[in-house]
């Protein structure tokens, strides 16, 4: 009758781990089925459409000659700000909504969760870009039909790749900042400081000091991306952008992931 000596262990050695595809699906769902995430996605879609309609009205009313990239650029005014917020929230909400305990209990390998979140953001970026590229193409065709002018596409395929990079960079930097501070408001403020305040300071410094002027493209990731927005990036600027990307993307992300691995789950 020695049932007390029988080991009371729960043997999960034969249980397979959570497949990565499932983690990605769960993280994608988390982005869209919370109130904050859903409203953010709805706002992005609605505002982007609104911008496009206004842009169309203005170019037709004023007899302007827009190109395909102009429509992409117009839509980027909203998505460029709001998509990164989703990137911040995707990681910080685990802490602010206190779901981290459940998440990391079900999948104790935290880095897999982080990678699943990043893949989720990648999927959202691709979907957003695909929707934007199609809407922009539609707007361009409609413009041609309404105005009777020839439709200018430029290097449409190249521009789409540029904008994909732009969205991915925005998402990833935002995610890195979120991982760094693990707090939604602080992460958002940090991201906006990076997007709106730091480029101004660096540009002023570059205008004043010639040695800094040649240094700036190597460290100002956000300003470097302007040449993705207007499609003029070329040659050495790619290298400069990559170096600046290490400063603003790779380093914060590495520190952020290190922090997530050790952060207390509250």
């Amino acid at each position, binding site marked *: 009758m020695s049932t007390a000596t029988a080991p009371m262990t729960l043997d999960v050695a034969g249980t397979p781990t959570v497949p990565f595809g499932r983690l990605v699906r769960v993280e994608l769902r988390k982005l869209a089925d919370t109130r*904050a995430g859903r*409203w953010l996605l709805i706002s992005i879609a609605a505002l982007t459409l609104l911008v496009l309609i206004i842009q169309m009205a*203005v170019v037709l*009313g*004023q007899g*302007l000659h827009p190109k395909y990239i102009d429509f992409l650029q117009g839509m980027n*005014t909203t998505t460029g*700000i*709001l998509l990164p*917020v989703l990137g911040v*929230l995707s990681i910080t909400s685990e802490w*602010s909504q206190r779901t981290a305990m459940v998440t990391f209990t079900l999948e104790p390998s935290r880095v897999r969760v982080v990678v699943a979140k990043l893949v989720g953001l990648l999927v959202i970026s691709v979907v957003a870009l695909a929707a934007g590229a199609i809407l922009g193409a539609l707007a361009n065709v409609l413009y041609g039909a309404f105005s009777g002018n020839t439709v200018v596409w430029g290097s449409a395929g190249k521009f789409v790749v540029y904008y994909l990079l732009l969205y991915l960079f925005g998402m990833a930097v935002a995610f890195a900042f979120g991982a760094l501070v693990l*707090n*939604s*408001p*602080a992460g*958002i*403020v940090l991201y*906006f*400081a990076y997007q*709106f*305040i730091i480029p*101004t*300071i660096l540009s002023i*410094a570059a205008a*004043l*000091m010639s040695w800094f002027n040649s240094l700036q493209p190597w460290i100002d990731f956000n300003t470097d991306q302007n040449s993705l927005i207007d499609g003029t990036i070329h040659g050495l600027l790619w290298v400069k952008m990559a170096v600046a990307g290490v400063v603003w993307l790779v380093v914060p992300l590495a520190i952020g992931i290190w922090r997530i691995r050790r952060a207390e789950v509250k």
Partner: protein
Amino acid sequence: MSTVPGSGSPFTLDVSGTPGIPFLRLFQVELRKSVDTRAGRWLVGVTVGVALLAEVIYLIVAVNKDLDGSYGSFVAASAFVSSFLLPILGIMVVSSEWSQRTAMTTFALEPRRMRIVWAKMLAGVSLTAFVLAFALVVGLAFVLLFSVFQGNSPDWTFGWSGFAGFVMNQTFSMLGGFALAALLLNTPAAIVVYVAYKYVLPGLLALGAALMAWFNSLQPWIDFQAAQSELYDMPLTAAQWWHLVVSGLIWLVVPLAIGLWRISRAEVK
């Protein structure tokens, strides 16, 4: 022996003789709440720290490049930083009641919610005054440092009109954040909307004005930030004052009024 309740002797808690909480105490409590939480303390700390950093950088550059070292330009350097961070302070003063779930306690102790809101607003204004005073004092120190390095006598160019414009701008930006937070009662959402309003909207309005003549004449009436930037060039014309009033009504008074109405009825969770 009728200790049984409900038999004539009502078991009511008679507070009719208890005086209400004095407004000054509410104000003190709200002021304390805004700096003794982790978020609030860090925000004020970062505002002061980054402003100081901006001053040091400007001093180094100004000395090396022989730039304008006037009092006004040093104050402007720290104003650039605080105009980004003060609105966030205004936002957190309001929305943290909901995000930190302290609203239950706050409104149970003082059920007249509007008094809390006014106390919060006054606390926000006080912190703005503190940041401004800090900017003025630090600017003073840096003007003196600049004159020592350059060997010139200090240049006090700033003027009362610049000062008035500075104070009004910063107070309006804090109140703008406050109004949006009251409207949304959610810290991240209010920050995002505020940033869109501050950094994206002016560009769009300017673009619209450049393209369309009718919009160009409408823009001054709806662009609160453009109207505020006029404040640095006092005295304003009557038309400029009216631009400020009308655009301020749209971006400050209306969101604030809706926000206050919302706070007065919001469910406390």
